[in-house]
């Protein structure tokens, strides 16, 4: 009889323990997500806030600098890509996707605030000429460099940009 009571009691305790452990795990997962969000120095909200501001305080304002800094930080080097596993590189790897998001922030900001075209021109020029960067990143930067140059009535210097990168840019822009 005692046994009959003990077995369901043990089951109830086990179920309760399971839910406690799971709840704790969920709280911890949430924490890690929150930490991750905080790590994204430039948030979409930042970009939006900046886009809504009427005046640009200085020629090189904080938000542009923030995005540029983030971009230099996030863009992977070729040598880093080459260390990834075959599974990771079968499609655009995480490092590329993160870099793409920051470059997207850059494109959005310049689109919303054409006042940043000069800074954009300089950023894209430097990025397109960086030989350590993957071809796709250099190609998107070259595309931006050309766009900024056109908007500003400037010329681009592409002599030191490899033909493969120029061909990729032509491919995405045409």
């Amino acid at each position, binding site marked *: 009889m005692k046994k009959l009571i003990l077995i369901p009691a043990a089951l109830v305790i086990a179920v309760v323990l399971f839910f406690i452990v799971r709840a704790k795990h969920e709280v911890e997962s949430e924490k890690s997500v929150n930490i991750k969000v905080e790590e994204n120095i430039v948030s979409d909200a930042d970009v939006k806030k900046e886009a809504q501001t009427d005046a640009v305080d200085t020629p090189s304002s904080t938000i542009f600098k923030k995005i540029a800094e983030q971009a230099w930080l996030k863009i992977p080097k070729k040598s880093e890509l080459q260390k*990834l596993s075959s599974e990771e590189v079968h499609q655009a790897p995480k490092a590329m996707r993160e870099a793409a998001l920051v470059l*997207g922030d850059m494109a959005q900001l310049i689109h919303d605030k054409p006042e940043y075209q000069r800074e954009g021109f300089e950023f894209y020029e430097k990025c397109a000429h960086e030989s350590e960067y993957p071809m*796709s990143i250099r190609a998107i930067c070259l595309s931006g460099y050309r766009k900024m140059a056109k908007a500003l009535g400037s010329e681009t210097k592409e002599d030191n940009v490899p033909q493969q990168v120029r061909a*990729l840019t032509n*491919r995405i822009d045409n």
Partner: protein
Amino acid sequence: MSEVAAAKAIVVTDPSRVEAKITSDVPSEAKALLLKDFTRLEKTLIKDSRSEATKIFGLPSINRSSLINWLNERVQYIVSDRFIDMEKIQNGILPSHLTVLSDEHNFENKNELPDVLRPEGQARSVTLKLAENFGAQLYLIGKATNSLFGLLIPGGEDYLSVATPRIGLLGVGQNLFQDWMKENIRFQDKSLKGELDSLLATEYRLGIIFHEARHSDGNGRSLGFFHVKCPVDHDYAGQFACDSSLNGAYSIGGAYLKLASQACDDCSEKEKEVLRVFSLDAFSRVLLSKRTRVSEEETLHRCEDLLKGNQQLPSECFYNETPAEFWDASPEGVRGK
């Protein structure tokens, strides 16, 4: 119990909707996302009359219907990536849902295999983790071992005969869905993008589905359009993450993402730019020429003068370069039927 169903030789599809069957082993959340992705494809007004995309897809014109039809011909079933353990099958261990229907099947181009299986191809892994084309891999293994496989799809009653790479069986992994969820937490900022939160994730997945669909094509050496090792100076040097044809899976994925970025009326500048980077990443893996090493004797012959001058030798001294080509994509096993 089961009878053998013939592989569909000619697929008649409804070009207004994606017809791939998502089987019961795919988790319901993933299934819901895939269906949402397909709905987006069905609603996006993609149009392109330029030669690049039409040549890559092998279509006379690119529009929503022609693209959906193209996909329907190549993707029949989407299963969980756990459905098949390709490594075990390569080692001759077959799961209960896979059987050998015949070891006397008359495979087309019997003695012609893609480089990926040739000794000099050095290839081992043709698998991937976000998604993979099981159909093409099973057909290739079957052909290489002279075994016609029969496959019981989850929820199916009959064995499907794997007599063509066009069986169109794609496996999708959890990473295809979770990765973006975790990384794109910032896109869940409702104040900014509302219902567009997962637009990039959707287009990214569709790009992968189109990429995988291309592996359902090819014959002889082009069979499966399997990837090749990226050369030493490439971003992904040493990995099987490049294509040596101009219309392989990376070209398809890149072309789709480019089309998607151009057709995306509801995309922000940021989203368009991100899709363009993804497209470029795919295009950058298409090798525009193939290098083959020449003999030492040939190097001496070619660059004798430079060698005498003790100068650094250019790559022309060591390699022959042949331009890449568009491969014949017509699939084995169903041609002429």
